[in-house]
């Protein structure tokens, strides 16, 4: 097994925390796949298995008042930002208790409390939003950072380039986190980019950019802390290219015709969880009982979350037309719909709690 950059595992307690964070994402998503095959979850499901070190490392560097923008592969980001596994799973079950009351699903998790601005199923769609969130912070004089996650596939979109330029031109407090897992669906990076060094592209916009081993959570965290500190102190946008790999198919519909099994197996040798776990065990800092207890804890968290989702209630159909426009303080009705025949909310009443 390839080793971590930081052999020493300096702070055992912190390392255990990181291990736990990655494991929480892993177990949550393994459960999602299981639930998907039982048809409890539907729609598109994109898992992050293999890439956990990226979200785990970057989230460590953020403060509660910072903002996060992610993609459709965002279960892990939401969880590690502080959205409960229960609220995430309930969302995928389409329950009223879900973080978006069942309207968003897997690809569209949002949570105002943790300043988690989605979940975005349009590739590169989140980048301009992140620029705008940072613009608002700058204009309001807040010392906050917006972290924006996106895949390397997004780099080909115009919105990526427009966002790089705006953020750099206006020196906005954005941390761009490119999750370079080498594939955009079936399209390998080398087949879609004339210049495959992504950090270099950001540098072309005068943005400080580094490429980081995205399988090494300690390296990710270290780079993210450095970048976030710089962004927060006013030195403009920063960019991390996090080199990682997705172990599973793009989505539940992907027959994976475009890559060799052997390539996947090779990357699995650098599973971010086993890497850290192995390094800690080698350093004698993760006794077997502690590792077992940690796994049991995480399993318990996930099974509680499944129970929460299972016991959730459907959002009443009478609420369907709500949130197309904001509730107005004076209209009293939660339904907000009209009374014409096509509006199935007409006359049914009954607001959710």
């Amino acid at each position, binding site marked *: 097994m390839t080793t971590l950059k930081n052999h020493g595992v300096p702070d055992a307690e912190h390392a255990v925390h990181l291990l736990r964070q990655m494991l929480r994402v892993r177990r949550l998503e393994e459960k999602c796949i299981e639930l998907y095959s039982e048809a409890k979850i539907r729609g598109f499901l994109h898992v992050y298995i293999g890439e956990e070190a990226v979200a785990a490392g970057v989230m460590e560097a953020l403060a509660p008042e910072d903002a996060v923008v992610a993609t459709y592969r965002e279960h892990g980001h939401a969880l590690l930002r502080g959205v409960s596994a229960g609220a995430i799973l309930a969302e995928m079950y389409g329950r009223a208790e879900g973080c978006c009351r069942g309207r968003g699903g897997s690809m*569209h998790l949002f949570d105002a409390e943790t300043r988690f601005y989605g979940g975005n199923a349009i590739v590169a769609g989140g980048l301009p939003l992140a620029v705008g969130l940072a613009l608002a912070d700058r204009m309001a004089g807040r010392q906050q950072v917006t972290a924006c996650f996106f895949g390397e596939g997004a780099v080909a979109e115009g919105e990526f380039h427009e966002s790089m330029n705006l953020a750099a031109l206006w020196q906005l407090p954005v941390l761009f986190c490119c999750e370079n897992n080498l594939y955009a669906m079936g399209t390998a990076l080398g087949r879609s980019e004339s210049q495959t060094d992504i950090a270099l592209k950001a540098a072309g916009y005068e943005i400080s950019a580094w490429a980081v081993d995205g399988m090494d959570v300690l390296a990710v965290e270290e780079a993210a802390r450095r970048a976030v500190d710089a962004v927060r102190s006013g030195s403009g946008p920063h960019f991390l290219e996090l080199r990682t790999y997705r172990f599973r198919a793009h989505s539940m519909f992907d027959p994976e015709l475009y890559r060799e099994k052997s390539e996947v197996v090779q990357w699995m040798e650098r599973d971010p969880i086993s890497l850290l776990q192995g390094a800690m065990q080698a350093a004698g800092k993760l006794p077997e009982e502690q590792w077992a207890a940690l796994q049991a804890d995480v399993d318990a968290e996930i099974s509680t979350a499944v129970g929460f989702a299972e016991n959730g209630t459907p959002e009443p159909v009478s609420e369907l037309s709500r949130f197309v426009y904001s509730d107005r303080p004076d209209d009293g009705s939660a339904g907000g719909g009209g009374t014409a025949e096509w509006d199935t909310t007409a006359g049914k009443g009954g607001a959710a709690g």
Partner: protein
Amino acid sequence: MKTTYREAMRAALRDAMQRDDRVFLMGEDVGRYGGSFAVSLGLLEEFGPDRIRDTPLSESGFVGAGIGAALGGMRPVVEIMTVNFSLLALDQIINNAATLLHMSGGQFNVPIVIRMTTGAGRQLGAQHSHSLEGWYAHIPGLRILAPATLRDARGMLWTALQDPDPVLIFEHGSLYNVAGELDDGAGAVDIDKAALLRQGDGDGDRLTLITYGGTLPMVLDAADQLAGEGIGADVIDLRTLRPLDSHTIVDSVARTHRAVVVDEGWRSGSISAEIAARICEQAFFDLDAPVERVCSLEVPVPYAKHLEEAALPSVERVMAAARRAVGAGG
């Protein structure tokens, strides 16, 4: 021959590539991945990467490049994964493809075909479920097709490629797996006329059901059930949303005196509104009842199954509208 909508589309692509070497297919994951809806599966092996051209995630760029290639004498078929992502290419489609001929005083026509998936029903949420073909049908300079049958899936592409101007083809995601019989000799079909797929009979109440694309199977189902209630329904498959074939609609309404329009798009400012307006303009005195419309609820399509179902047209809602139309004339 037994086939599916997906296979019929693929046969049409293969046929076009074989017949005209100016034809090529370009889009995201059309090659190595095998097409995001597997329409182009196997074509890379057959025609090579030059003609089955994978593109980066750059909708505006590669649609625009398709327009340029059409100007340069090629016959590109550009695939956009879904209509939702076509919004990133809207500028190229509307400001270039639809206008160049007119702006250039007739000098530069754009013979491009742009195919994309449309529609809801698979719990994909608001950013992957919209039906915006009616919106495109607002644009002069574009021709908008919505193949709903195996015959049209097989036959519309070649005719579209013969058109000197831009043609957009909308394939409803729920249709790809539809299986059925197709004539061995099935080939090019017209892309001008709506089809009267079924003529209501009997001496009882009559009405015309007008639809296209993904809602056609549901409407045919409703027509069957209405027949059981003694209501004879004509079913019109519009096939082409622009230019709209008012003739076929007005002819039928002149016989049935009632019309129900079924459209998965939203109601306000929609293709269903356009159809209702044309009926009012051209067949007002034939009507025995107000035109009814069954459309999607005016919400971004939600994820949860029960909410999505409530938002979309259904057989029940079509039947209810049909009964209202018939009752209103009684």
